[in-house]
């Protein structure tokens, strides 16, 4: 046997294995320290302790099922008929009378979609909202499998359609998403961000409030900061029984439903 074909001796094997292990650990450490520099996501909750707690409150007693919030969302966020961000479900069995349940994204505190995304394309903003980075999403759709509420939709094709709700219910305020990425309700984050620059107050000023809440004719759907006791959302919650969807799985949604009285 020459040197090249001789099997490894035990000593060589152990030496190599240790070397490999140390090398891998070092590489991991260097990589992690690079990553720590630009990882705003990890600090999201810490940064928000004194910030606003955005929430949406939907009153099942007041909702008349008129579809206006569905259409306004579709117009403002420019979504397709079959891939709406905000949908309406008629429930005839749970309560004595039929109710209409409209369902945006829950913006969960413990969001399963954020945990499972392999590339951090969906993430918690510093204010706690769950948003999408359309430039990073690879379209694996694991978040759609993981979302407990089925709020996520995929761009199956390049969009060329005309939006049937424009201009009746509003005009698009954000760009159409490219083919091959996942999208979902943003709580109209573009309005919240613009509001912050112009000194408007989300929940109070319509220009700073999600389109679905502005258009609601019965004020069944309101938005605001739960840390501000005077915000429309806080006031709607007062004295009423509220539930969140699928509380048993611990996602901590930011959308509260007021039970019919």
């Amino acid at each position: 046997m020459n040197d090249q074909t001789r099997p490894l001796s035990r000593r060589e094997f152990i030496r190599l294995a240790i070397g490999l292990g140390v090398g891998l650990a070092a590489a991991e450490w260097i990589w992690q320290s690079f990553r720590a520099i630009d990882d705003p996501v990890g600090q999201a909750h810490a940064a928000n302790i004194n910030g606003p707690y955005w929430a949406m409150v939907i009153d099942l007693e007041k909702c008349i099922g008129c579809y206006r919030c569905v259409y306004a969302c579709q117009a403002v966020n420019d979504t397709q008929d079959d891939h709406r961000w905000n949908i309406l479900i008629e429930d005839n069995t749970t309560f004595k009378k039929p109710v209409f349940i409209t369902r945006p994204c829950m913006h969960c505190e413990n969001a399963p979609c954020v945990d499972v995304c392999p590339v951090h394309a969906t993430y918690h903003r510093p204010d706690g909202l769950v948003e999408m980075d359309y430039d990073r999403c690879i379209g694996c759709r694991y978040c759609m499998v993981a979302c407990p509420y089925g709020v996520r939709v995929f761009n199956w094709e390049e969009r060329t359609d005309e939006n049937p709700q424009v201009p009746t219910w509003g005009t698009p305020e954000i760009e159409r998403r490219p083919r091959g990425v996942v999208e979902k309700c943003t709580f109209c984050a573009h309005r919240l961000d613009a509001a912050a620059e112009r000194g408007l107050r989300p929940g109070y000023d319509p220009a700073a409030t999600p389109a679905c809440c502005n258009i609601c004719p019965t004020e069944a759907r309101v938005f605001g900061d739960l840390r501000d006791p005077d915000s429309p959302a806080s006031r709607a919650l007062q004295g009423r029984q509220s539930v969140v969807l699928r509380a048993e799985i611990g996602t901590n949604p930011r959308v509260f439903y007021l039970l019919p009285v």
Partner: protein
Amino acid sequence: MLRFVRSNLFYLWTALLVIAIGVGLVAAFLIFTRGLGVTGLNDSVPWGLWITLDLSCIALAAGAFSLSAITYLLGRDNYRPLARVAVFVGLLGYSGALMALLLDIGRPDRFWHGWVYWNTHSMLWEVTMCITLYFSVLLLEVFPMVADLPFLARFRWLNNLAHRIHRFAPILAVLGLGLSLLHQSSLGATYGVVIGRAALWRSTMPLLFIVSAVAAGMSFTVHITMLVQWLGRRTLVPSRVLFEVGQIAGAILLIYLYMRFWDTTAGNYGYVPGRTEATNVLMTGQFAVSFWGWEMLLGGLIAAVLMIRARSRQSYVSLVVGSGLVYAGIVVNRWHTTLLAFTQPLATNPPVTSPLVGSYSPAWTEWATAFGIIALLALLFSLGMRYLPAFRGVALSTSPEPVASSASSGTGE
């Protein structure tokens, strides 16, 4: 006519595969240019046939790590020829999985994001990293076999490199074992961590996945080795080894069935919202025939009995049929697991019937690309078995019983 077919079997087989690959390429072109709208997938069933293909390819490739571990770590040198087939099958299996993944993601141009933007919480991130690393391990393991080709003999440096790599076979086996244990299980965990879908949300998923993958991978290796030996009229692996591995795989399958029994029984005790409905779909509903027929009987108990009894009876028929049934059953299991996830209505508290429960049947584009990928793998496998010196084996002479020491040719022992 029959004689023509028989004497040109390899070329006819190749032609058939090339046609399938061609159709697959047309479908793939459609998918890459028009997007995933041309598939049968939709918002309520976002994963389907391709994911099943991924999971199956990777499960059937599990023979590579398990047999390498037996050979190089437990020092069973007589398993080496079988481990070599398994490693070759493994490389092809992982290539197939990577191809299916590339089709499946909506932005194939961003395939590299998984390596650059890490979310270490994601099971899919873990799977991505492990599969890529393990794919490299398999490449290193297969490289010496390819470098052994006679027409590459003129490149001395190539052969030197190959022999150097081959010396590290035990280390590659350790790496392969570690990476495979990680990602075969985390593929199960990919489903197991989905808290929003009760049919998936169970901590047994990773264990069920890896145990079934080892059974399926070993069986597939045995099955395909026997086919090659039969069609090529030669001996690659001592039959004693085939029977032994068959018996091990059969025993592992029984362990899997036992685990599955308790997982199903304890996991569905009383009423578990979502999971109980999914179990009903599986056991008495839409999937009942394929579940009881394939997963439990043919691919379960019957296959295990055939595999275990084949050795004492020296029955080649039991072994080849049994091993085929094992991996068929596991493939059916992956299909069921994927589709059961999407039976649950999602907006359920207060409980309502949401319009989200969709139906799914794969479009022709999905079938064509899936069969195209399988055909490509089959073609590469056939070419490898025909031309790689590592798989030359020993031609069958008059005696039907192969000689035990036959398959020692090949990579630099």
